[in-house]
């Protein structure tokens, strides 16, 4: 009787364990369903379509400004292309800033420098990684904006460069940690063989180790890119939030995620504006999801090619 009691209790716990494994999959599924559900009326409800249908979101409109995001207006305008452009610009600045720095630092600490430098740098990177994005946004708004303005002579105080650099600070730890893991994972024998053949430290690092670690390094870059695309608070506080349709980096930008964060509080539930904001959220989700899947697939292919060749 006691054995029976224990067995069924055990079975229950094990069932729970098996069920909980699905939590991550269930979570993703629920996110997609419940955000998509609120975004759907943009495609289906006649009222929403009239005001904010897909053609209004993506195609140029008549009038002096063909791509205008001004949803609170006598005639609401919902072109999300300036928002796409804003997100892209800030992300571009962030990865142009962060990836070379992070990869350079990872190369240095794992290939050229004595081990104690890594012991010193890793905690600092962890410190940087631990800074909440709201703090980085605060810093960019209060301090960095003036520095960037003076250094680059930009007339706008809050702009894509300012937000991009702050965003880069958030991306650096991600890229550094993964790149460092990838570089460290390259077997010592590769390096020893290269040195034995007379290559210098730099030649070994750049021509032997780095290519061998490429899958992990690429994964690091993609992860950094994904983080930059989705980040909200930094861009909300530091980019000026102006939906300008231009490639110029020194102008302010309005990103997709900052738009949602700034505007969702006010919308009347069920209005076309509300649904468009959820649509933006769905687009962000789908894009980062696809990016992650692609990275996963690409890295696996690369790994197979490299291992296959070796």
């Amino acid at each position, binding site marked *: 009787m006691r054995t029976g009691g224990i067995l069924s209790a055990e079975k229950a716990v094990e069932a729970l364990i098996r069920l909980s494994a699905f939590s991550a999959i269930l979570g993703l599924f629920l996110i997609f369903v419940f955000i998509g559900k609120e975004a759907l009326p943009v495609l289906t409800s006649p009222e929403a379509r009239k005001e904010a249908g897909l053609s209004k979101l993506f195609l140029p409109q008549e009038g002096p400004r063909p791509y205008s995001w001004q949803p609170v207006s006598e005639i609401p305008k919902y072109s999300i292309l300036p928002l796409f452009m804003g997100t892209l610009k800030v992300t571009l600045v962030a990865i142009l800033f962060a990836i070379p720095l992070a990869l350079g630092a990872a190369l240095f600490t794992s290939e050229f420098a004595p081990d104690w430098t890594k012991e010193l740098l890793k905690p600092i990177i962890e*410190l940087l990684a631990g800074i909440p994005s*709201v703090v980085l946004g605060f810093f960019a708004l209060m301090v960095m904006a003036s520095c960037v303005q003076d250094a680059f002579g930009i007339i706008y105080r809050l702009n894509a460069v300012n937000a991009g650099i702050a965003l880069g600070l958030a991306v650096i730890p991600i890229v550094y940690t993964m790149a460092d893991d990838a570089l460290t994972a390259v077997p010592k024998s590769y390096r020893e063989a290269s040195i034995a053949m007379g290559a210098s430290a730099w030649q070994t690092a750049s021509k032997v180790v780095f290519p061998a670690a490429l899958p992990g390094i690429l994964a690091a870059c993609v992860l950094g890119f994904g*983080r930059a695309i989705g980040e909200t608070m930094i861009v909300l506080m530091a980019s000026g939030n102006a939906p300008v349709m231009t490639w110029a980096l020194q102008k302010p930008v309005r990103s997709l995620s900052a738009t*949602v964060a700034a505007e969702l509080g006010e919308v009347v539930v069920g209005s076309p504006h509300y649904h468009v904001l959820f649509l933006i959220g769905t687009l962000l989700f789908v894009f980062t999801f696809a990016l992650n899947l692609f990275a996963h697939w690409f890295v696996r292919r690369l790994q197979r090619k490299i291992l296959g060749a070796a």
Partner: protein
Amino acid sequence: MMGRFFIALSALCCAVIVAMTAFVLGDIAYFGWEKLTLSFLLAAPEQGMAAGGIFPAIFGTFFLVLIMTVAVIPLGVMTAVYLNEYAPKHSRLVQWVRLAIANLSGVPAIVFGLFGLGFFIDFVGKGMDAAFFGSRLVFGQPAILWAALTLALLTLPTVVVATEEALRAIPDSHREVAYSLGATRLQMVRRVVLPQAIGGILTGGILAVSRGAGEVAPILFTGAAYFLPYLPKKLNDQFMELGYHIYVMATQSPDVEATKPILYSTVFVLLALTFVLNFTAIWVRSRIRRRLRLAK
């Protein structure tokens, strides 16, 4: 020759990163130190955030991550246990679950905020109201419970990954010994594996708390408030929170000069909190790894 130049360049990269980190932290420490007194931490805000302290925000943050931890640790540990102890190796399902966890950690924070609003508040909350409370609005509105559950989903991958790392570090021989003594799988997990994985679970939990205390986007519309005259006590109360407080003070208060010292000190407090947590987790993790290396 060129090689030396590039090596120097890579060293420069290190230096730049260190310098920028020092700049950010130094600026905050310098300006934030001024107002940091015990009364600041224990008092409530006064005069429109131009005086007084930030106790309600500290309390709110603690209560928030407490609920989040209660939700995320069991779920995360069980998921990791399944993946490492129960799942047949190389099964398609396991691959999908791992992929899902990796994807979950890449979802933008604001999307979690939207999810909290669209699922927890508008669906679960309103459903609970309709089922149990008639037409009253009890759970179908921003509440600390929903904000905490949203954060739990956001930090789930952190707990799973850290726990799995700890589980994988336990040599299979330990498991085999347990089986040879007649234990069931669950008994083996409970008595042999989990106690040894405590370090990893702790690491994951601490990192999750650190992340949860710092993320603002997910709580923007799920329960955070700027000024509440009471401390959150019920699960459907709203709450003040350190990160949200920083955001609102930096952008909303009408007297920027008066608020600046308080703003900086609040940032200091949040940073100190996250750093203490992070470094504790790192210390625990490095101790585990050292023990692992010695065991091998």
